């Protein structure tokens, strides 16, 4: 992969330094992945011996204001990225391993040191780390954990929050939790209504971040939102909405104190202004780089571009009921007509990788996926269209959002696909919509006059296939907006949901994936590589396969 060198040189450390780094006690968990990544890379980059330095303020430019910094009140990428720095969950994703090395961030202990899942898959027992303190000095114990779950699930709880409930039901699956129990001071238990193998991975989502009950009781929900208290590597200092959020090192962090003194998060919404701020040195790191700026930044010696490769897929949903796209040969033809390589290279400037099937990278289903992908073959596409009764192609309507989280650069991308489809005789008329209006319309499912919509999704659990392709989840019940229905796929997905063995479960999803690929209810297009750029003085930054990242081990030269 072309980006491999980027991420590795970004470490900027030699083997000897790494050894010393380990000896210095910054943690074996950190050293091991760096070591093996360098071993993979062959000769280590020669760099002057530099010791990690404590201190300094790192300024980061984000694509949006992180807004309210309380877990579970927003699903926005900018918010969740900040929550990762400030809060802990029971379970964490390991962000110290770069995307060049792992496809999915491994699950590691968070506030729970160990956990146990009963053989029926219903009882989750978490043994908590002892002696962990919230930023206000109170202890993180099983009561505190229960407080956090209760206030998301019980409407009568004095600190109940409706947004928190909706978000964690939607992202994590809180509706599956029947009850939570405090077994003893350091043991917390969760009983599910039905087996839900995705639960553990979902709990690592930082919308489940644990807040300090003492602080919340003292301040109440509204004032807590202005002075949030968690237990993560960085503490909240101050926030001016739309201007900055300031965090400082938590010297007592159970996983080792961060090296940076402070992190300042600045929302710089306009992409070209964000690039300018990085070039001018006003910020040290930026996320969401516009494709046209990637080369400019990559060839700038003082700047490193790393690719994260989060679990993301950008695709077209095709209407499996509309006159034009009802026949699977038409849908296959549309998949064959799209030049994904061209799109990824010419429009996205290699900030995207091509999608072969429905699984995004960072999802266990993506690794060793057994679909080959549709290769660009307009001649075959035309033949399939003719076989399906459209020798002269057809005209169709499609809609997409003008912007929005994960939508990348929708207009140039959709126009590229429109041109590809025109080459095989399919004339697409677009309706471009504002994001909110788009969601409202998409939720209803594709209407008979509309053959397609473009959207994007992010999921790191294979269960996701069910939410996208199970016919029980046609709107308004669910999000299968294509009206796709295949009894065999339904059967496999039902079976997979009940299967507790991870390997067998994954096998069932892969079987379903193969059928879905052949039925082509979508045009599988690309995955965002989510480039992140930072200045040379930023040391030891790792871009993991996620939208979020860890700054605990980062230091400034």
């Amino acid at each position, binding site marked *: 992969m072309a980006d491999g060198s980027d991420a590795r040189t970004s470490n900027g450390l030699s083997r000897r330094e790494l050894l010393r780094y380990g000896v210095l006690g910054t943690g074996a968990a950190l050293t091991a992945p760096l070591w093996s990544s360098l071993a993979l890379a062959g000769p280590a980059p020669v760099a002057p011996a530099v010791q990690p330095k404590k201190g300094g303020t790192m300024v980061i430019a984000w694509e949006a*204001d992180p807004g309210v910094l309380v877990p579970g009140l927003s699903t926005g990428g900018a918010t969740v990225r900040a929550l990762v720095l400030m809060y802990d969950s029971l379970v964490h994703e390991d962000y110290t391993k770069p995307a060049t090395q792992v496809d999915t961030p491994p699950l590691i202990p968070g506030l729970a040191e160990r956990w146990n899942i009963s053989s029926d898959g219903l009882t989750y027992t978490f043994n908590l780390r002892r002696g962990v303190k919230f930023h206000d000095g109170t202890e993180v114990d099983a009561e505190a954990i229960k407080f956090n779950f209760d206030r998301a699930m019980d409407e009568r709880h004095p600190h109940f929050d*409706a947004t928190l409930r909706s*978000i964690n039901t*939607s992202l994590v699956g809180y509706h599956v939790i029947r009850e939570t129990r405090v077994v003893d001071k350091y043991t917390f238990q969760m009983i599910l209504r039905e087996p839900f193998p995705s639960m553990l991975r979902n709990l690592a989502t930082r919308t489940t971040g644990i807040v300090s009950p003492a602080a919340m009781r003292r301040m109440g929900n509204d004032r807590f939102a202005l002075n949030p208290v968690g237990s993560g590597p960085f503490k909240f200092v101050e926030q001016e909405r739309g201007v900055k959020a300031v965090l400082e090192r938590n010297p007592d962090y159970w996983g080792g104190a961060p090296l940076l003194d402070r992190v300042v998060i*600045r929302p710089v919404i*306009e992409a070209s202004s964000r690039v300018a701020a990085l070039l*001018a040195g*006003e910020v040290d790191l930026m996320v969401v780089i516009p494709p046209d700026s990637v080369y400019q930044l990559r060839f700038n010696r003082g700047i490193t571009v790393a690719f994260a490769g989060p679990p993301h897929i950008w695709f077209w949903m095709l209407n499996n009921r509309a006159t034009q796209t009802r026949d699977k040969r038409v849908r296959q033809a549309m998949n064959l007509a799209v030049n994904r390589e061209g799109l990824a290279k010419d429009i996205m400037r290699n900030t995207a990788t091509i999608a072969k099937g429905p699984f995004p990278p960072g999802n266990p289903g993506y690794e060793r996926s057994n679909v080959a992908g549709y290769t660009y073959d307009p001649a075959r596409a035309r033949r399939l269209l003719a076989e399906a009764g459209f020798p002269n192609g057809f005209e169709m309507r499609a809609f997409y959002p003008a912007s929005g989280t994960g939508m990348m650069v929708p207009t140039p991308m959709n126009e590229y696909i429109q041109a590809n489809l025109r080459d095989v005789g399919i004339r697409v008329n677009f309706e471009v919509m504002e994001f*909110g*209006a788009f969601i409202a319309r998409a939720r209803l499912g594709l209407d008979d006059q509309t053959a397609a919509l473009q959207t994007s999704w992010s999921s790191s659990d294979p269960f996701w296939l069910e939410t996208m392709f199970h016919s029980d989840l046609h709107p308004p019940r669910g999000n299968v907006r294509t009206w796709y229905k295949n009894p065999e796929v339904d059967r496999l997905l039902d079976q997979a949901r009940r299967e507790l063995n991870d390997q067998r479960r994954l096998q069932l999803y892969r079987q379903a994936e193969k059928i879905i690929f052949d039925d082509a209810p979508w045009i599988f297009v690309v995955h965002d590589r989510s480039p992140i750029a930072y200045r040379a003085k930023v040391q030891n930054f790792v871009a993991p396969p996620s939208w979020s990242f860890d700054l605990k081990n980062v230091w400034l030269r």
Partner: protein
Amino acid sequence: MGRYVANRIALALPVLLGISIIVFLMLKLVPGDPATVLLGPQAEPRDIEMLRRAWGLDQPIYRQYFTWLGHVLRGDLGLSLEQRIPVATLVLTRFKNTAILTFASVLISCAIGLTAGVISATRPYSVFDRLTMVLALFGNSMPAFWLGLVLILTFSLGLGWFPVSGMQSVRGEGGFLDLLRHLILPAITLGGATTAIVARLTRSSMLEVIRQDYVRTARAKGLYERRVVVGHALRNALLPVVTVVGLQVGFLLGGAVLTETVFSWPGVGLQVFRAISTRDVPLIQGSVLLIAVSFVFINLLVDVLYAYFDPRIRYS
């Protein structure tokens, strides 16, 4: 005069009420609601319904409106749905920032625009006049986002004179000088079009006035040319300029979104834009209300200024 002002303020109340109803209805007509947007495209219908109920979005529209109005009458603009901060706090901070930007840009516009307009009018069809008017046309035609980026490229990245974005340096000490350094480029960007309008308007208005009998009389009295131009001609030529500048101020207070976006200036325009995208009804209502109040106030100020510039105008 006092009664006139009081009357105008009383008249403003139904205007504000009307605006709040129209904005509210428009928000209801636009597809998508705050629950759908907040939970994102992945949310299950069940979760969206739960949140809609909790926020009272399942109530009839008129009831939602009167609930909001009831709170406003008690001085409570509510809590932003998305940001969880009292709307009044959010809006006032942002409004202050936009006001700083607007007044700086109007100051620059008036200083440059009036000078250029007056000189052009006193030397019509000279090289200076033609050059100024071409520049004015250019200034008026340049979109703010383009001008802003060109200024950043030249003066921030190229010459390193000014910071790229924001209102204060996050690393530095802050203070007035820091604010001034951050203010100059966005103020020029925002003021580009206004400068052009003021220059052209001053010129044409001056040309008209300068041919009047009383100007000739002033000159015949033997007054210095400067006194004639500034004291007699300009004062009378200013009336239309004041009207337009007043309108511009009102317009810029609410409509500086593009400049605020390019320079990450934390103003009210940017905030309203985000609030509209997230359908944050209380925040949109609060912001629009404040913008409307400022519009009414500035119009009133312009009316009062008329009387100052032209003593023949008396309000009773």
